[in-house]
């Protein structure tokens, strides 16, 4: 049995050596918020955070993540309370089809947790591994900037929008 810590919850799982974290999240644990659009480390839709850094769950062997703090999109909100990054994406119109959104938000969160006032360049670099086909990035970048402001304003940062 392998012990994984996902969204602050401990799981004892009978993992097989070849299983990627992506497959474990989606297929075994039903955490389908994490997506994939390529399964080969190009699209960024499978981005999760491990120990505070954005990584691609499609190329992480789940066994290798034992002992790590894994955070997925499901771990960001609680009930109706959204994370400031989610709130900012909603408010700034940074979501279109939403398929890339969970991965994009995880990349943004990893950036902002370390650096809540990033430059435009830092924002672009932080999401250069996340493909969005609908929105063309500008509104996403604006949302990330705004999320940083929200995080600085009120560290608990929750606001109901809709």
């Amino acid at each position, binding site marked *: 049995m392998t012990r994984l810590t996902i969204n602050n919850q401990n799981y004892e799982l009978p993992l097989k050596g070849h299983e*990627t974290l992506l497959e474990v999240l989606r297929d075994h644990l039903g955490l389908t918020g994490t997506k994939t659009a390529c399964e*080969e*480390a190009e699209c960024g839709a499978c981005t999760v955070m491990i120990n505070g850094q954005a*990584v691609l769950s499609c*190329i992480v062997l789940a066994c290798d993540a034992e002992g790590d703090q894994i955070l997925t999109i499901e771990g960001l909100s609680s009930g109706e309370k959204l994370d400031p990054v989610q709130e900012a994406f909603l408010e700034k119109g940074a979501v279109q089809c939403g398929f890339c959104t969970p991965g994009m938000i995880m990349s943004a969160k990893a950036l902002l947790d370390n650096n809540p006032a990033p430059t435009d360049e830092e924002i672009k670099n932080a999401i250069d591994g996340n493909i969005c086909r609908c929105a063309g990035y500008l509104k996403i970048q604006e949302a990330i900037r705004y999320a940083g402001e929200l995080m600085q304003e009120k560290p608990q940062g929750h606001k109901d929008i809709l």
Partner: protein
Amino acid sequence: MLLNPLTHHSPVTLPEACRIKVSLERSEILAGGTFLINRLKLLKKKGLQTPLNIISLKKVAGLSGIYAKEGVVIIKALTTIRQILDSKLIALHLPVLKDISSKIGTSQIRNMATVGGNLTCRYPWTEMPAVMIALGAKLHFSTERQEQLVSAEDFFKNEARSPGILESVSIPLVSNQRASYVRCKKTLHLDIPLLAACVTAEIKAGRFQNTRVTINRGTAFPVCLEEMESLLNGQPAQHRVIEHALAQMNPKTFDASTDDYKIHMYKVSVRQALTDII
């Protein structure tokens, strides 16, 4: 199922890792996973044989970190590209490494990929090899019985065959050394390079000394342009010298591709890298 069944090994010391590696058939070393795991998916997709054992170095203690010691900078093998990018030591002593680290892969890849993986994965288009050769880096390998020291240049001349598990890379610090890395992309945005050129040289009394011109053509391991180096060494660090050296070069050197643009960019990249350092 993205991968074929395999056994995951998680040694905690380097000797243990070396032992497992030698004792198991069809085994591969896993560092950051950015090359290996994708390659395993591809092999499966093509119906080719895949490794049965993966030896993850993740839990091996002491394999990560950057420090300076007696005129060399030592980068442990599992140091990620992100760590290099964020390292003050690297920014101070080896800015060219910081520069290329910012261009490797994507944000997530930079968080995951390691220096060791980049050097030993045997993909011809990774970024680090050309730079490590030009910087005169030495690779420290561990095997079950002994340590082995190989220069980056020799390592890639020998088609990047690892004699053991890479433990660290040491890069000599050379005063007056200047370095530049020029990358020619296939498309405008983030992409793997079509080719890349790395130049290091000491400029003493306005003249080129100990010049290294390394080329990564994207289709084979990087090579040094020794002819070019000898044309430059001892000559004044001036544009006309660079142009003269480029003109003197055996045209066959640049003729390694069927792609006209690539041939053109070959000279452009070398010229640019040399121009950057003078």
